[in-house]
């Protein structure tokens, strides 16, 4: 009796272990092998709402456009990885990713601070990375041939923000950031341009605090800036703005695209209604070609696409097109060929026409200024676009 229990427990464990071996010994397809597209984004933790959107957007594109590759005899697989928004996790995942020879393209990440070190790993094997969301200039300024992005850049986004602030007849600003490459980067671009435009920058401060913002809010309240800019992500920005408003701060609020998540409204509620944020990824509802995408997404996953889901969808579409082009010869393409092919793709995507320049930036990226319309997270998609621009990346000579 006891023996049989032990045996069945062992049996179950063996089955579980086999089931957990990632992609272990796939049943060989009747053809030329397997092509895998991977994503890396935070699927757990405080930024999972956005990370999950990236995964699902890419998944939708792979399912929709894998037909041509399957016709050529390839088995197409989609493999999501969870980088937990942590650089160390992203890098160790990257090592697993480059070890799996079937992975020909990676869609990711959400955080520039994770994308930059992870892409150093992809570069070793020239694995094509197409980022839906990483706006830090460094991502493409390293001029790696395998690194691309379909979103805009923070050196433009920060300026879009300060320009808009100026147009609101704001005279003084206070800038806070989260000390990450992304948050501090965009905050610095905002600050520098604000100074150039003659706005009075009352303070510039970094913090890793996530819950108690009292000691930061108190000096801000005393100095009463017209506008507070938070360079960072909603899981930190939302409690900051909430506590500031509750403490009686009357300034206007503004932030970069890291604030663009329904969780901002969920956490901060009515305190952020009327807040402005810039974005290098417009709401899917604002993109005329994305209607079908939004419907498909809702139908399949039962929720609205978060920001960057549409960008991830386009990024995955670019990846598939590049793999197709590189596989023209008939056999499974090399990673280098895919990276080269990505730069040649011309796609009429749902976020507009996509074409990369020599650095991997989009030739014309879209930038938006939006305003939070409601404290109901379900209505995040209704946020008003108050300004929309298509801007080319700054030329190399114009940079410091």
């Amino acid at each position, binding site marked *: 009796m006891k023996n049989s229990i032990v045996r069945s427990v062992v049996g179950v464990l063996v089955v579980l272990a086999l089931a957990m071996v990632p992609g272990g010994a796939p049943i060989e397809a009747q053809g030329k092998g397997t092509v895998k597209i991977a994503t890396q984004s935070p699927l757990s933790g405080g930024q999972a709402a956005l990370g999950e959107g990236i995964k699902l957007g890419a998944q939708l594109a792979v399912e929709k456009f894998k037909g041509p590759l399957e016709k050529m005899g390839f088995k197409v697989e989609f493999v999501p990885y969870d980088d937990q928004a942590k650089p160390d996790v992203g890098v160790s995942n990257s090592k697993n990713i480059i070890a799996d020879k079937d992975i020909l393209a990676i869609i990711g990440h959400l955080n520039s601070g994770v994308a930059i070190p992870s892409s150093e790993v992809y570069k070793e094997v020239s694995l094509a990375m197409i980022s839906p969301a990483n706006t830090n200039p460094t991502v493409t300024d390293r001029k790696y041939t395998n690194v691309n992005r379909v979103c805009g850049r923070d050196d433009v986004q920060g300026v879009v923000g300060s320009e808009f602030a100026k147009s609101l007849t704001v005279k003084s600003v206070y800038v806070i950031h989260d000390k990450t490459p992304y948050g501090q980067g965009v905050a610095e671009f905002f600050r520098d341009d604000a100074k150039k435009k003659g706005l009075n920058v009352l303070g510039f401060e970094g913090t890793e605090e996530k819950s108690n913002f009292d000691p930061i809010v108190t000096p801000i309240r005393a100095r009463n800036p017209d506008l507070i800019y938070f360079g960072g992500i909603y899981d930190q920005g939302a*409690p900051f703005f909430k506590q500031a408003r509750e403490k009686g701060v009357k300034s206007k609020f503004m932030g970069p695209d890291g604030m663009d998540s329904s969780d901002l409204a969920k956490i901060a509620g009515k305190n952020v209604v009327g807040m402005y944020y810039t974005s290098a990824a417009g709401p899917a509802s604002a993109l005329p070609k994305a209607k079908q995408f939004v419907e498909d997404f809702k139908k399949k996953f039962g929720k609205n696409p978060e920001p960057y889901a549409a960008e991830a969808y386009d990024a995955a579409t670019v990846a598939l097109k590049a793999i197709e082009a590189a596989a023209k010869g008939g056999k499974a393409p090399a990673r280098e060929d895919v990276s080269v092919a990505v730069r040649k793709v011309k796609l009429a995507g749902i976020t507009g026409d996509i074409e990369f320049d020599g650095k991997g930036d989009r030739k014309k990226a879209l930038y938006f200024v939006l305003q939070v319309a409601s404290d109901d997270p379900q209505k995040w998609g209704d946020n008003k676009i108050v300004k929309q621009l298509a801007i080319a990346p700054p030329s190399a000579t114009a940079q410091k």
Partner: protein
Amino acid sequence: MDLPLLLGILPQVLLDGLILGFMYALIALGYTMVYGVLEFINFAHSEIFIVGAFVGVELLLGLKSAGLLDALPWPLVLVLVLVAGMAASGVLAVTVERVAYRPLRHAPRLIPLISAIGISFFLQDAIRLFESLWRNAFNLVYPTMDVLNVRFELTQTVDVSVKSLVVIVAALAMLGVLHLLVNRTKVGTAIRAVAEDQAAASLMGINVNRIISLTFLIGGAMGGAAGVLFGVQYGLINPYTGFIPGLKAFTAAVLGGIGNIPGAMLGGLVLGLLEALAASYLSLLTGGAFGAEYKDIFAFSVLIVILIFRPKGLLGEVIRGRA
């Protein structure tokens, strides 16, 4: 430098620091009581603290979806939530002691420490798993009760919100009750006897195991209360939120003199005030060269200096005499 500005915000900064300090003090009691009795640092206490916050938010969200949040008088709601958080954290602390510490009580001192660190990780991820299955959420938001956000202006630059008053009053009340319990009751005498000499205490007819459980219950309940107050005051919690306040509270306990109950309260207040002062003033005083992000470096530098001159903490360490 803008002197009127610097002085103008001082009362508000001190008030902010006091509120933070009371929270640290409540958490620090859990460390210090256990250390006083067992000479052992319960590193899982930061998670016991945050479990209180989670039980509090679950109860509030439950009341809200039942439509009772606005129907019941708000002081009653707060008392309910506080009691629930205290009960849950207290029971959890007792369970952790029974399961993970008692079997190791006579092992070398580092062994239960490792067990405590393990429990800490276990609880963090257990909360994360539970909340992701139950609400599919990582960050949980305390439902706002508008009455708690009402602010009283004391002067033009200083005001205090109802919830800050709640934190101060609740913390003072609990610290007072604890003080009376330990110093004026029979049970308190028993706790002090066990802290002084377990063997002798048991010869005098004191059930040592029960007193140790009681110590964990009280320390856990104080931590749970702090968790609820933390949630009410700052509004947002996640399964890992407990770690940093726990570490700070442990520091506060050492600062005050570990094992010393009034010391934990004093240490908490000093640390809270230092932190608030540093975060608010560093960037103003250095012209932006050092910002709020250096608050911990500043606060801990001061702590090191204090501990160099008073190595046993502000009020002195309480180590039980060895048999």
